[in-house]
């Protein structure tokens, strides 16, 4: 399954079904992280779509998908979505989750670094999450498979409920 979402513009190719699947599931997975999902925490959840400059159209589309899926709220909390090119990601920004579109190693390093300060990181290309130190992804097999990077989970002291770990695929 393949289709260039940016049909009339140049950019990387994305599987629209996989993209929608990831954007439906990953924010919910992120909210299951112990610190992020604490009920008493009433602050808005901020999600950043990080993209290569050629993928701006896809990033805008991701924002539209998130808006239509969540209608501005997730698990009772306000959801704020923004998009930035990888080059403009600043570690001083406070995001609860960064979702990275296709990127090179250098670009993903910025996402990885953001994860060191407690941001849940997720990546479109599940094959590259381990080598680039990204916490989450979703792969489409017979069913959607939630992928969790065990090394990042340990190093950054993220904590998910056992039930999620039971249905997820853990990459050691």
């Amino acid at each position, binding site marked *: 399954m393949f289709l260039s979402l940016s049909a009339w513009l140049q950019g*990387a190719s994305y599987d629209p079904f996989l993209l929608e699947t990831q954007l439906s599931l990953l924010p919910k997975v992120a909210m299951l992280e112990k610190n992020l999902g604490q009920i008493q925490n009433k602050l808005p959840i901020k999600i950043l779509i990080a993209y290569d400059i050629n993928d701006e159209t896809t990033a805008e*589309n991701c924002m539209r998908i998130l808006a239509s899926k969540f209608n501005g709220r997730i698990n009772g909390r306000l959801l704020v979505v923004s998009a930035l090119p990888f080059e403009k990601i600043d570690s001083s920004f406070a995001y609860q989750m960064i979702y990275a579109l296709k990127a090179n190693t250098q670009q993903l390093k910025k996402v990885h670094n953001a994860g060191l300060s407690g941001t849940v990181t997720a990546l479109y290309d599940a094959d590259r999450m381990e080598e680039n130190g990204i916490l989450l992804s979703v792969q489409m097999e017979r069913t959607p498979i939630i992928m969790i990077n065990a090394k990042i989970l340990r190093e950054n002291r993220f904590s998910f*409920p056992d039930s999620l770990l039971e249905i997820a695929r853990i990459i050691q």
Partner: protein
Amino acid sequence: MIHRFSLALLALPFSLFSAEIGSALFNDLTENMNAISQEAKTQRANIDYLPYIMTVFEGEELAHAGASSLKEALTLAAGVNIASDNLSLFNPVFRGSNPVAYGQSKLIIDGHEVNDLFFDGYTAYLSMPIDMIKRIEVVRGPGSYSNGHWGYAGSIVVTTYKAEASRDGNGRWFASAGSDGVRKAGGTFITSHDDFSFAADVYTLHDNLSLAYGEDGLANNLLGASNAYLANSGDAPSSTDATMTSMAITKGDFFINGRLSTYKHGSAGGINYALASDGDHYNIDQWQLHAGNHYHLSDLQGTFQLSMTQDSFTSHQLLAPAGLILPSLSTPTVPVTYSDGFYGIHEAYIRTYRMDNTVKGTLFGGETTFGFSGSRSHVTSEKTITTDRDSGIGMTDYSTTLPFFKPNGFISDITGYITYEKALSSSLVGYISLTVDQRNRLATQVDPRIAAIYTIDPGNLVKFSISRAHRNPSWQEMFTLNNKARWGNPDLNPETVIAYETQFIHRFEMDHTLSLNLFRLENNDQIALQYNPAFSRYEYVNGSESLIQGIEAEWRKRYDSTSFYAAFTHLWAEDGNDHTLANAPSYTARGYITHNLNALWYTSLAGRWQSKTPRTATDPRGDMKAIGILDTSIGCKIPSLHSEIQVTLKNIFDTDELYPSPSGTYDDDYPATGRALLITLRGTF
């Protein structure tokens, strides 16, 4: 990378886990995953994990690869060859299986089978422009995965842009012009509000193609030795005029949709193998209307649907040239000279009423589907008007005395099926199905199917299946009368096949896969025309069997700016007499590359090759020679207008492509289009 397998691969509903957690969010997540799993099946987003040997092509990618129609797209798919006949009807042949039987494969468009009742083929829809098509799924082997449509050699499932909304906009349009007077235009529009949706599409196309044929069947005494000198050769009308329009309305659980297709084509090599003249043509028209309602029975979801379809075949053709001499109809000892030739008007209109009911849901931890359908087809109008067969001049209506098919013929079908799919472990999924089908008084057909998918690891999986399938004889094969070139037989047995298939899929990385597929097809009761010297005519008989074994390989790799697809098929095929199976090339290869040159420009190269094509053992002509065809295209996007322009050159080297003619008809094989140029403008709104 070390993986631990997830329990998500089990068929157990995800919601079971949520009960342990009591978390609304987790519950929501698991419900979401279940819904996505179902949608993935519908949108073929997980085809590697479905129990079929199949390939999915996106219409947009095929368009960029230079395919301009459904037929051209299919020539790029592994295991599919296009066959043709004297009327220039086209028939996608899967893995060499009986190229003269049109109904061996089924075409399903937006959930509805569109094979016409008369031939059981779908020539008209093969001309559907690629710009109408969002996705093509090619299922090789028996047992289509679309419930209720049981493909024999294979199934082609087309999803149009009308059927699935896109985020690119509410509508699409295109217009094309090219060689041979090709003109095409069409568009799609979708709108929805709350639980109401409306979608429609339309296209029209025209060409003025004329193809050069060799000496026609008269030279082989098909109308008697005394008429052999009248044999003709040269250009024959092969032009096409086609229009298709469809619409779909849904309101809550209620739906109604319809499709109208008209297809007019030059008579080409002629119905009776006499070369057609200017103005000779035939029409294959069809309309369909479906209405129904989705319903719920406890946890089961059902769909009830009523349908009405009309198929028609009409032909207006000079069936034999001026000077023809045949015995008088009323006094056979008196010869009649047809000074203006023998002209025929043949018309058949057949109406089908159909009821379908499908129920699906989770039973015993697996996904189950029950289906039942019943249909009845009968003639609403028939005409057989030809040159008077006693005087040789003027036209006489023989509709009641010498009809070209049985006027009171009917087809009554009752079909029931059940499918059951269950994950037996984290790495093994099992699938079983059973179909029971009864047509008229023919023997009841019972087709079981068993399949399994074993996931070795996330990058490697294997599929196995054993299936039985059947193809019911078509209207033409059962009821054609008073035509020495083809005579029907209402007592034909259905063709049957037992198929053994396995496929290994290796996933290198995202968008990079290689698959290998081994298959063995045991075909029995294959229906074909056989000459009956007692009546001096060709009759449909259950004349042959065949054994087809083979290996297919498919490789797919997509970079951000470049996309590759390559397929290779090797067949070992023999008929019931241990002769090499006719019309089935042993080796075929095809593929394409599309490449984005920069932000605006893209280009492509597509090719197909097949080894020499063997003929029947009794055919004195040598094998058809191997052939390779290359196409190329270049396109430019116009972002400000949400559109693009593409120029495609088909058959770059103007290679002579031919379709095999049966022995004793045309000595030369049937011609096909040569080099052709096509310019297309397309966009969204």
